[in-house]
Structure formats: structure tokens, C-alpha cells
């Protein structure tokens, strides 16, 4: 069965904002934020994100799974990609820089010598990434927990998408919690047959084979479920006429203000970034001095 994210009405500021205005703000924030690598700008966006997040009045217990996922993503992007391999900083942080820690080692057998050097610039870039991605995550993690599931399709339609596309967006939005539910059911069914995912051992190919008891039923169920959904929609005339969206959306004055603010944020960012060439990567001298003395 299709399920939704666990939304509940909290009588919060977020509950009073029209979901279309929220999406406009969220997208404007995302685009604006990605124009900058200058921490002074990113702090400004980060503060906006924190304030926005508090509007949702969500509890940590409700959103912790979402944040766990974000943490895994941030760890791989910031710690692995930027700090360890340096790949994430390519094209933004100038080559060279002030080394704060170096370590050389040789891989046995192949005799490859690896030189690892962490620079102050990469470290600062990691902080900028944390501000940028943390802010964007705060804006988007909030959506499933604070948006009424009845409003999904009507919102995307209200943003100008055709009926079919809007309803596809709604179904996509509900796919993740539905998949999570199906996965939990399959894991239980296989555990009941003595299967222990923690004990999957061996090489990569063997590991892939050993997770087949989970992957195959989940995938097959998703395929069958999509066929069921398509049939259920066909049997109720979906896509044959111009659709009425039962969930009624109304803009209030505060939504208009939010949309104007979003537009100004977007235009202002574009002018600053492309007109005045502001917001490129910048590192404070004091940070370098603090690290290398």
C-alpha cells in the first residue's frame, strides 16, 4: 500500500505557509546558496535556514532518520571527498595552499608512495561545504515532516506542472516511505528464515548474491505495486480529462511576502555572484595564522 511521510499538524508557522510558497522559497534558497563559496555569504544563508527550520517545530525524534541520511551524505562529501581525497575541493580551492598536516606512506607490494597533505584552504572549504550543505539540508529535510500529504499533487499542479506530472511527483514523494515499509516487511520475512544480514561475508560478488533475498522481493514488489497503482488510476479515469484537485490552496499576504523575499534573494544572489563577481572561495588570514602559527 502507498504510504506517506509522517506529517502531523503542529500549529506552527510552517503549517500556515502555503506549500507552493514554501517550494518557491526552498528552490530559490537552493539556487542562491549554490552560487557562493564565500563563508560570509554562506553564514547568511545558514542563519536563514536555521530560522526556517525552527518554523517547522519538529522534534529531533521525528526527523532523526532524515538527519542520519544527511549525515552519511555530508560525511562522504566533506570528510572523504574533500578532506581525505581533496577531490571535492577541485576547481574551487586553488592548488597548493598552506599545509597544516602531512603524512607519507608506501603501499606494500606495489611500492606506491602516497603523500597526504591537508591544507588550511581545504579545511576552510570543508567548513564552507558544511554551511552550504547543512543549510540546504535543513530546508529540504523539513518538507516531508511538515507538508500535508493531501497537498502534494495540488502543490505541484499549483506550481504550473501538468496534471500527470504533478501526480507523478506526488507518487514519487510517497515512494520512499512505501519502499521503507516494504523493505522492513521483507527483512522480517527473511529473518524468519534464519537470514542474518549482519553475517553477510565474503567478496563483493558473494556479498551481492547474499543480499539477493532482500533486493529481489523488494524490487519485484515495487514493480508489481507500480502496475497496481497504474491499474487503479486507469480504472478511475486518471489522465483522461482536466483534473480537479480537491485540496484547496490559498495564498495569504505572508505567502506573497515570502515569494517576494525568495525572488529578491535569488535576484540579489545572481547579481552579486555574476554581476559583481562576489562570493568566490575566500579564506580569512586569521584562520591560516591560527593553524600554522
Amino acid at each position: 500500500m502507498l504510504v506517506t511521510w509522517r506529517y502531523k499538524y503542529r500549529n506552527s508557522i510552517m503549517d500556515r505557509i502555503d506549500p507552493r510558497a514554501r517550494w518557491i522559497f526552498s528552490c530559490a534558497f537552493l539556487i542562491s546558496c549554490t552560487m557562493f563559496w564565500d563563508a560570509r555569504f554562506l553564514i547568511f544563508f545558514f542563519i536563514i535556514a536555521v530560522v526556517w527550520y525552527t518554523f517547522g517545530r519538529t522534534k529531533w525524534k521525528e526527523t532523526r532518520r532524515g538527519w542520519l541520511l544527511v549525515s552519511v551524505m555530508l560525511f562522504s562529501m566533506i570528510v572523504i571527498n574533500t578532506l581525505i581525497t581533496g577531490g571535492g575541493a577541485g576547481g574551487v580551492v586553488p592548488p597548493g595552499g598552506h599545509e597544516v598536516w602531512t603524512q607519507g606512506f608506501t603501499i606494500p607490494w606495489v611500492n606506491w608512495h602516497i603523500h597526504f597533505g591537508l591544507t588550511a584552504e581545504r579545511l576552510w572549504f570543508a567548513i564552507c561545504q558544511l554551511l552550504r550543505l547543512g543549510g540546504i539540508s535543513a530546508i529540504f529535510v523539513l518538507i516531508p515532516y511538515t507538508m500535508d500529504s493531501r497537498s502534494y499533487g495540488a502543490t505541484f499542479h499549483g506550481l504550473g506542472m501538468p496534471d500527470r506530472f504533478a501526480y507523478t511527483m506526488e507518487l514519487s514523494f510517497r515512494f520512499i516511505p512505501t519502499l521503507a515499509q516494504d523493505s522492513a516487511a521483507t527483512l522480517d520475512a527473511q529473518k524468519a528464515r534464519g537470514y542474518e544480514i549482519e553475517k553477510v561475508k565474503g567478496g563483493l560478488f558473494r556479498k551481492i548474491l547474499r543480499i539477493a533475498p532482500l533486493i529481489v522481493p523488494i524490487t519485484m514488489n515495487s514493480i508489481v505495486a507500480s502496475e497496481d497503482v497504474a491499474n487503479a488510476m486507469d480504472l478511475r479515469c486518471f489522465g483522461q480529462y482536466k483534473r480537479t484537485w480537491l485540496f484547496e490552496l490559498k495564498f495569504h499576504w505572508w505567502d506573497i511576502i515570502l515569494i517576494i523575499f525568495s525572488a529578491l534573494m535569488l535576484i540579489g544572489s545572481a547579481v552579486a555572484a555574476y554581476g559583481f563577481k562576489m562570493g568566490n572561495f575566500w579564506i580569512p588570514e586569521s584562520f591560516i595564522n591560527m593553524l600554522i602559527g
Partner: protein
Amino acid sequence: MPKTNAAALVFDDLSFQYNTRSEPAIQHISFSVQPGELLLIAGSSGCGKTTLMRCANGLIPNAYHGKISGDIKLFGRSVFEMQMAEISQAVGTLLQDPERQILGSYVLNEVGFGLESLGIPRNEIIPRVDETLEHLGILHMRDRETFGTSGGEKQKIALAGVLVMKPKILLLDEPLSSLDPASAHEALQTFRQLADEGLSVVIVEHRVEDVLTIHPDTVVYIDEGQVTYCGDSKGLMAIVDYRRIKLPADIVVERARNAPAPQFYPVLKPNYKNPETLLSFEGVHFQYNEDSPEVLDDINFEIHKGDVIAVLGHNGSGKTTMVKHALGLLKPTQGHVLLEGLDTQKMTVAEAAHTVGYVFQSPTQMLFAPTVKEELAFGPKNLGFSPEEIDKNVTWAIETVHLNEELDTPPLALSFGQQKRISIAAILSMRSRILMMDEPTAGQDYWNYQAFMDAILQMPGFDSVIFITHDLDLALIYANRILILYGGKIVADGRPQDVLQDELQLKKFRILPTSLLKLNMQYLPKTGSFYRAETIAHFIG
């Protein structure tokens, strides 16, 4: 749809073969449905009932492709000349599993979905939804989430979503399969009422006996894709094999008198003097999360060696939740579950699986292997059985479910009913001491489920068997102990003849006495125990 005097639905020499199959699913089907007629289509698993419905509602040929011949006429017009939207407005379909049909996250949105698709103005949709919900007696559910509703409620919501579009014909695909007896009775009364109001109602159902209570005007019996009977219900009862279709007990008694008595010798016998406890529930409470209500409320009982327990209860009474505790899939929020004396809180599910074999309700959640043989070997392999033991167990399990010839077939290529039997065999092959089955007969026809239940209970190896069911007859034929759950509490626990004797009490717990129970109660002084109708026929003589 223009008003004509034509029949509502006419199947005219209809045959269909799916592109993916080598044999036709239905052949030369001819019968008609009149406006206001209630028609029952009966037949065993895989006989072509679902294909026939797909032809009538336009999914064939619009969504499923294949070779089609003959015609279907909807109020005089061939459906092959009609658009899908046109067919869908005239023919409403309720799928077997309402969960597969429900799209909306709230009842109002779900029921209004079809009207939204038709582009009807919002101010017309809401009164029409309200009117339909009121007609079905579920207006109070309008603003509830669909996810948290029970099986019976989901079915009514799905039905409302179909009826709100004011179809002329209502197709119901095994509408009783997921319902408890009282919900099934209510649903049947609703279908009868709709037919009486002028709607043509076509019910495809295994539970023939239940549908006969609302007096279908016509019964069509399909066997191997062909209509073998079309007429009134009396005629059906005279010609159909009572071992293949479940008929009222008195009819079976009448017809089975001259047939050999069924041979059934269950291995498990309760030991009332020195019971050996295998599993015990001690003051178990459970809730899924802090905000939700308690699903289990102070559950206390023991499972002993020799017990064959049927767990009965209404939709949402906590049956599955309770049984999942036995394996440690769920842990009590208060109290203890002890498996062979060990607290399930302190063991993994895989460890518990050595003792408890649990067959889930849906087979699609577990089947994955390239062949049935490998599927059946998966559990014993995980439990560390030797290759010789695995081979022996696989052979025994596949024979028990009568699917020997499918050992090299991919399980996912089998029909739903066969997949269900494979899922049972996959647990049987683990040879656990306690076998637990959640709705083992769902999606199975009468002959098949009787055959595998007979085989399981006559085979040595299990110390106890527990099954959850809505089928009261299954419970009274096979169980030596019955547990009834009501609102998360155990309200009855004992021998079938003790627990099931008070009809009023049963009705209070949403369990309706069947013709077989009434027959058994009538002859109990003579038989001393509960039996299937064929056996009672020989007691009566």
C-alpha cells in the same frame, strides 16, 4: 452511457491468451448480466476468473496485451470500441486486495479520486463523497488517514471510491478474502442492497457458501477457463464437486453420504495431564510507537506440545502482532515472551527461527530464488542443516503442498496461489518445532488448502502448529484449541467445542457461526468432537 434495454454486460464467445503464456486463460466464455442482477462467478485458483474481470473493466486489452477473440458488450456497445475512461465510468471494479487500489492518503481524497479525474468541480465532489460514505455507513471516517484503517474499513473505502463514480456495473474480485466474518457479512449485505437498487453486481469469489447467503440471481462456474455451469445456485450445488467448492454443510452431508469417509489422522494431540510448555506470553503489552494505542493488552497464554491452535479475531484485533512476538520480530513494550524458557528479548530472530517457523501472509515479501528448489533450501541452509537433510526436507515440503513438478520453476513465475503454497513449503523445509502460519488459506481454493492442511497435520515433526485465520470452518476442523482476540485482548481460549458453543458471545467478537459449526453443535453429543461435513455424513449414516 445511453439508456437502452440491452443487457448490462454480455460476454459473447470470449477467449483470451496473454502474450506471456502458451495457453489461453479463458475460452469461449458466453453469458450475460442484466441490470440489477447479482451474479456470482465461482471457480478454483487459476481458472480464469481474474482474466474475465480484466476483460470486462477494459484492463484487457488496454493494460494487458494478448490474443483476444469474441466480444464483450456493455449496454449493447462493444467494449473494444470504447475508450478506457468510458468503460471505467460504467464499470466500477473493486480489486481483491483493497490496499492495492487505495491511492489517496486520506479517506476524502481516496473516495474523491475518480471524481477529481473526471474534472468534476470541487463543490460537487465533496457532497457526492459524503453521500456515498453515508450510504456505506462510514461518513465518520471521512477525515481519517487510509493507512491506519483496518482491512474491513479499507474495503469499504475502496468500494466508496468506486461507487462515487455511479457505475452501472460493479465488479468485485474476491471481495471477502481479507475480511473477518462479520465484516464479510456486512460487505455482502451491502452488495445485495446495491443490486436491489438497480446496480449490476458481479462477484468473483472462492467463498461460495458465504455469497449464497445473499441469494445471487445467477451463478457461473468456471473450470480451466471455460464456463461449465450457468444457472441458479440450487443447480450449482447439485453439479459441482463439493470437494472443490465450499458448499453449505447440509448440502455436503447430503452428497457425501455415499462417498468414502475422508481419512484424516492428525499427529498432534494435546497432553492435558503433563503439558510441556514451548512458548509463553507473560503479561505482554505492545504499541507500535508512543503516540499510538496499545495493540496488545496484557496477553497471557502458553503454547504446549501437541497444541494445534487457531487464532481468530476481527481485522485489527492484534493477531499478527501477537504471533510476530513469538519469533521476536516484535518485542513487548511490557511483559515477556519466553521461547523454550528463554526471553525473546535476548535472542535474535534467526536464533528463534530454529524453534519457530513463521509463514507470512504475503508470499511476495519473501520469494527471491531462481528455482523453487533453491527457495526451499534457503531456510535450512541458513539454519546450518547438512546437504542430505536439506534435500530430504525440500522433497517432503514440496510434496506436502502438491507442487512437485515445479521444483525447477522460478517461484516468481507461479500464480499467487502457488506462490503462497511455496512460501508455506519454504518454512516447512526448516522443520521447526513450532509452525506458525498467518492466513495460510488466503488466495487458495478450497481443495488446495484442505489438501495441504491435511498433509501438514498428518506429518510427524512438529510439536505444535498455530494458524491465524478468518475461516471459522478451518479452525473447527483442524484446531484442538482456539484463541479469540478482541481489541488486543485474549477473550477466549480453549477447546473448539467449548469456545465456539455460545453463538451470542461469538457474534460479540465479530465471529459469525457457519453452517458447519451449527451442524457440528447439533451432532456433538454423537460425534464427541468437531469434524468436517463429509465425516459427519458418515456419523449420521
